[in-house]
Each structure stands twice: as C-alpha cells, then as structure tokens.
C-alpha cells in the first residue's frame, strides 16, 4: 500500500523527464507512448490504491524530512485517505483519457513532445497537491500546477494574445496564492504545525485555544487561495481567457482537475471551515454569485470554448455553494461528475474544432450532426448530463447541492435553481447551434469536415459512458432509502470529511426533483424552438446590443473594470518608476560613478606614464612613506 502511494506521482514524473530531456530525439509516437504509459500506470496504481482503500483507513507515507528548522518541521509526506483516493482516480483516469485524445489532436503540432512533457508534469504536480500531507507539500503542487497551466495556456507562444492570457492567469493565481501563503503562515503561528494528520485527525484542532477571529481569518485566507485557483469572483476572469491553450489542456486543467484544486483544498481543511460559520456563509454566497454570473455570461457567448469556460466557472460556483453549505461530499461528488461530463464536452468541442480546422465560432458551424455522429452523440450525452436530467451523472450531483441549499437557505436554492436552468439553456443552445440546422461555414470547411480519428473518439465514448453511470455512486438518500440503495459516495467520504447536512424529507425531495426536471425540460424546449425551430443565429459582433444583453455580452465589463482599477494604476506606477526612479536615480548613480571614475582616471593616468624612471621615483617615495609609517 505504501509503495503504491509512493509510485503514483513517480510515473508521470519519469515520463516527463524522459520526454523533456530527450525531446527531439524521440519520435512523436514514442513520446506519446511514454506519456500515455506514464499516466496509465499511475491510473492502474490509483485503482489498486482505491480498492485497498475500500476497507482501510488513511495511510501516511513519509518520503523524507524536508525542512527542519527550530520548531518548524515539514516533511515530504503523502496522505492517502478516501478523499485523496477519489481525486487520484479522477486525475489519473480523466488525465489518461485526455492524453489519448491529445495524441490525435496534437499530431500535426510542432510542439507535440513539449506538450506531452508539460501534461505529464502537470499530472505529477496535481498528484502531489492531492497527496500532500501538509500545507507545504500541497503548496508545491499548487504552485506547480499553476506553472504548468501558465506554460500550457501560452503553449502557442507565437501569438501575443496567448501570452497575455497566460500572464493574466498566472498573475490572478498569484493573488490567490498569496492568500494561501498567508493562511499557511497563520496556521503555523496558531498551531505550530502544517501537518494535516496532526491538525485534523490528531485532534490538535479540536483542543485548540485559537480564537474564533483567528480561525475566521485563516479560513478566509485559505478561501482566497481557492478563489484564485478555482476561478471564483473576483478572481475568475483568467479562466475564460485560459481557453487560449490547446483544447485538451482546457479539458484537463481548466475544467476537470486543476480548477477543482480549490474545492479539494476546502474539502481537505473542512474541519477548519466547520469551526467558522461566517466563512462558510461567505463561501456559499461567493459560490452562488459566481455560479449565477458564469451562467449568465454563458448565455450569450459565441465561442464554443468560451461557453464551456463560463459554464465551468458557473459549475465551480455551484461546488463552492455546496462547500459553503457544509455539504462537502456533495461538492466532491459534483467535482467527480463534472470532471467526466465537462472533460467530455471540452474534448467534444476539441473534436469539432479539429474538424473545422481551428474555427471556434458557433455561428459558423451548424449541422455537424451528420458529419460527426460519434462526437454528436457523446456531446449530446454530455449536454444532458450537465443540464441535470435524470438519470445522468449531473442530475445526482446537482440535486444533492440543491437539496442542501433548499434546507439551508431558500434564496440560495432559488439562485442555484436559476443557474441550473440557465445551464440547460446555454448548453442546448450550444448543442443546437453546433450540430443542428445547416452548415454556415465556408465551402472549404464543409468539404474538410470529418469524424475525428479513433484516438480522439475513444476517450469521448469512455467519458460519455461515465457521464451516464457515474451518478449512481451517489444515489440520493431520500430516494435510496426507499429503494434500498445506499449513497455509497457519502459513506465512503465520511472518514475524510465531516459533512453536516440533514436528510430531506422524501416527499420534499421528490417534489423538488420533479419540479427541477420539468423546468429544465421546458427550458430545453424553449432553446430548441428558438435555435432549431426558428433557426435563430446570434448576431454579429458589430451589431449593437441593448440593455441587459449588452451588459452580459460584454461580460459585465469586469475585465474593463479590473483594467481601470488595477492594471492601469500599476502601469502608471511602473512608468513613474521607470522614468524617475530608474532613469534618473538609479541610472544617475551608476552613470555618475562611471563619470567620476573616468574623470579621476584621466588625472591619475599621468602617474602611469610607462617610464621606468618615474616608476622608480614613485617606488622610492612609497618606500620612504612606509618607513615613516612604521618607524614613527
């Protein structure tokens, strides 16, 4: 068991090293084989760990002491419990499928090997993040995935826009990381250790005398870190821009795994959050707002990937809503199902983009159904799953979150409801515009349309299957009891997280499910009548939009606001520093020194005449001086 845990992150690291070091010496096929094998081995390893975990408590694996300084000690220790074994499965499983997809998707790209090296490195860091048994190890993974995300967003670095998007993501993440760092320092100050096991299962947290305010500050700082990584208000704007990277990256990093790191972190530290109701409230509100904001922006986006990106933002918001309500297992459950259907949707969009020769605007698509049947079918499944129609995965997880919201706060429940309706609408809008109707692109593109190769459709099919069945692992309590089915997922996570949600009444729950499903179906019908029935197509960029639509279409002007609030003042400040501090003062000192030296040199050089006799005179004078100094 311990050996297994040690091995999980090792495989991707090794394949990263091989591909990264040999780079051009490997053929593309070999690089792909190394990369996929690395992740596959990890996946197999994770399955074995998972099976072992089924009837096993948490396992702690110490690799070595890392920092020991005075009171402070941090070791590279892995913690494998039920929570992390779930994440291991998702990361390596979805990661493996996306690796396979990438083989087909990136085949023509020059940076093929570089791409796989980054992907493997990303998997490694992600595993480190999930496995770390103290905040420091988690932080390494945290920063590592941020770095890989940066490299992969700017993967096509020849275009300025991609680099800017990468920088934006990096800087935004840095803001969150600062929160994480501060939280880490505070935790050390307050508890004297960063170890999860010591803090949580060791009972240090329970017996602590740390004040409530301190705990609130710590958890808030942690949440700021989660905000940055998981794209919550106000740090969400980087995620849509991150779509500049290759589509598999968007699927793996910016939908399925990395952005869920924030959720993982909150779930991991749930004992702390449970002690601070104020923070939980805050988390729930932020999550609900983000969900609403992301979903509403998604309504009017015309870029296939942007729609999915805002959808991700909104789904992450739902997860945080669940966390804020104390329904940790529901949040993690949604992470799992979301990983399946969102990865599926992203890969499906990747397949579409691949077939369209790089075109991402859904106004130029349409009628792809007959050209790409497999992609269409899987995309449809993904869409249904995310919309929350039973019995697909999205239904179960979303239902759990809504149920939790219902019991806790009716307003939040209504918000969540609206979000899921919006989600259904924009997802079906996307589906209809892309796959139904008639083709609206150029003739050339139409000629080029084709179903993607097997390496790309295979992951789609597998993910589609999981999108259908994954929901059953978390069968609702209220319903399950009646039919004798356990909510296995909840029970499994019980050892790691302490969910505090009460059971809903059967009839309430059933009514709620019925109403939700009915509303969603109505919304889908509306979307169908608009985009298939009338064949409506979103207006061109240039057309002036009015009122609320204009506001939403321009993403609430948040980017512009940030520009005015942060970017421009910083630009001004740096211009000041450049013009005054750097050019005048620093350069002045340096140039002044140079000039003084030159000037002084021009006087002193007279002494250096090259004449031996003059040297002898100086020599004698100097000796005389030395004599005088020594003798008197």
């Amino acid at each position: 068991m311990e050996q297994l845990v040690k091995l999980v992150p090792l495989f991707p690291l090794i394949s990263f090293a091989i591909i990264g070091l040999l780079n051009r010496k490997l053929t593309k096929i070999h690089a792909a084989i190394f990369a996929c094998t690395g992740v596959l081995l990890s996946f197999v390893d994770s399955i074995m760990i998972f099976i072992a975990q089924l009837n096993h408590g948490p396992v702690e694996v110490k690799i070595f002491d890392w920092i020991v300084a005075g009171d402070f000690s941090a070791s590279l220790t892995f913690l494998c419990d039920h929570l992390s074994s779930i994440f291991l499965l998702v990361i390596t499983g979805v990661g493996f499928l996306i690796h396979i997809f990438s083989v087909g998707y990136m085949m023509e790209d020059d940076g093929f090997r570089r791409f796989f090296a980054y992907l493997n490195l990303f998997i490694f860091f992600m595993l480190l993040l999930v496995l770390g048994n103290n905040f420091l190890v988690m932080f390494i993974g945290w920063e590592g995935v941020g770095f890989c995300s940066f490299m992969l967003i700017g993967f096509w670095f020849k275009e300025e826009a991609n680099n800017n998007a990468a920088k934006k993501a990096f800087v935004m993440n840095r803001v969150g990381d600062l929160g994480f760092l501060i939280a880490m320092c505070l935790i050390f100050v307050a508890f004297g250790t960063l170890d999860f096991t010591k803090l949580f299962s060791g009972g240090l947290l329970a017996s602590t005398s740390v004040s409530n305010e301190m705990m609130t500050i710590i958890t808030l700082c942690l949440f700021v870190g989660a905000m940055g990584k998981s794209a919550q208000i106000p740090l969400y704007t980087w995620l849509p821009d991150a779509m500049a990277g290759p589509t598999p990256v968007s699927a793996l990093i910016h939908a399925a795994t990395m952005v869920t790191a924030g959720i993982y972190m909150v779930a991991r530290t749930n004992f702390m959050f449970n002690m601070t109701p104020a923070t939980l409230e805050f988390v729930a509100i932020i999550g609900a707002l983000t969900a609403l904001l992301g979903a509403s922006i998604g309504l009017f986006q015309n870029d296939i990937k942007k729609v999915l990106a805002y959808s991700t933002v909104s789904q992450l918001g739902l997860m945080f809503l669940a966390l804020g309500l104390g329904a940790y297992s529901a949040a993690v459950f949604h992470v799992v199902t979301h990983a399946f259907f969102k990865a599926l949707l992203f890969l499906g969009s990747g397949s579409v983009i691949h077939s369209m020769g790089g075109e991402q605007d859904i106004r130029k698509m349409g009628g792809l159904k007959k050209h790409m049947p497999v992609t269409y079918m899987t995309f449809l499944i993904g869409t249904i799953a995310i919309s929350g129609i039973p019995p697909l995965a999205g239904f179960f997880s979303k239902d759990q979150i809504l149920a939790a919201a219902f019991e806790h706060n009716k307003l939040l429940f209504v918000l969540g409801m609206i979000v899921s309706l919006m989600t259904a609408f924009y997802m079906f809008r996307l589906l209809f515009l892309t796959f139904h109707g008639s083709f609206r692109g150029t003739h050339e593109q139409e000629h080029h349309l084709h179903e993607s190769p097997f390496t790309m459709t295979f992951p789609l099919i597998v993910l589609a299957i999981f999108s259908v069945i994954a929901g059953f692992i978390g069968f609702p309590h209220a319903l399950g009891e009646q039919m004798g089915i356990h909510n296995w997922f909840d029970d499994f996570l019980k050892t790691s997280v302490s969910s505090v949600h009460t059971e809903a009444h059967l009839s309430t729950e059933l009514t709620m499910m019925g109403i939700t499903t009915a509303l969603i179906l109505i919304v889908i019908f509306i979307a169908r009548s608009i985009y298939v029935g009338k064949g409506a197509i979103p207006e061109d960029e240039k057309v002036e939009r009015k009122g609320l639509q204009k506001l939403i279409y321009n993403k609430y002007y948040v980017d512009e606001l940030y520009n005015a609030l942060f970017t421009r003042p910083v630009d001004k400040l740096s211009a000041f520093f450049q013009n005054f501090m750097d050019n005048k003062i620093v350069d002045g000192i340096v140039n002044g020194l140079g000039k003084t030296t030159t000037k002084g040199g021009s006087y002193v050089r007279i002494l250096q005449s090259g004449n031996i006799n003059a040297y002898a005179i100086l020599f004698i004078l100097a000796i005389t001086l030395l004599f005088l100094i020594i003798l008197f």
Partner: protein
Amino acid sequence: MQEVISGIPLVNYIYISAALFGIGALGVMVRRNAIVLFMCIELMLNAVNLLLVAFSSYLGDTSGQVFVFFIMAVAAAEVAVGLAILIMIYRNANTTDTEVLNQLKW
C-alpha cells in the same frame, strides 16, 4: 683579523651601505640608458651584500655570508637574462632609452 674590525663600529658599515644603496637608487631614477640602469641595480645589490657580510662578521654567524653567495648567484642569473632581454629590445626598438621604451603603461 678580529682586531681589525674591532676598531671600526658596525654603524659605519651601515652608513656606507645606505649611501651606496642611495646612489644606486639615484641612478635608477635619473639615468635613461637601460644598461646603466642595470648597473645601478647591481650597485644596490652590492650595498645589501656589504651590509650582510658586515652583520655576519660582527655577529659571528656564517649564514649571512652564505646569503651573499646566493645573492651573487641570483644576480649573475639575472644579469644574463636581463642583458639578453635588453639585446632583444634593442634589436626591435633600436634603442635602450627608457623615455622611448614607455610601453609599460598598458
């Protein structure tokens, strides 16, 4: 011979050596001919030799005289090489004037 030096104080030898040394140094400072410079250096070396022998005799220690041996050896070697270098310089620059040979500043 012990009586010989007993009549002369050691300080006299020190003064003479200092004077010889000073004359040699003066030569190095004022003469422009590199060969004469060389001779002046020999003069300075000899001033030191004289002092060493004087101390050796007055203190009854043979080591001082052995030092003089070594100084002579080194001086001989130095002159051989130095003069060879001078000849080379003369061949190239056609002069031994230190005013002209002022390349030592770079």
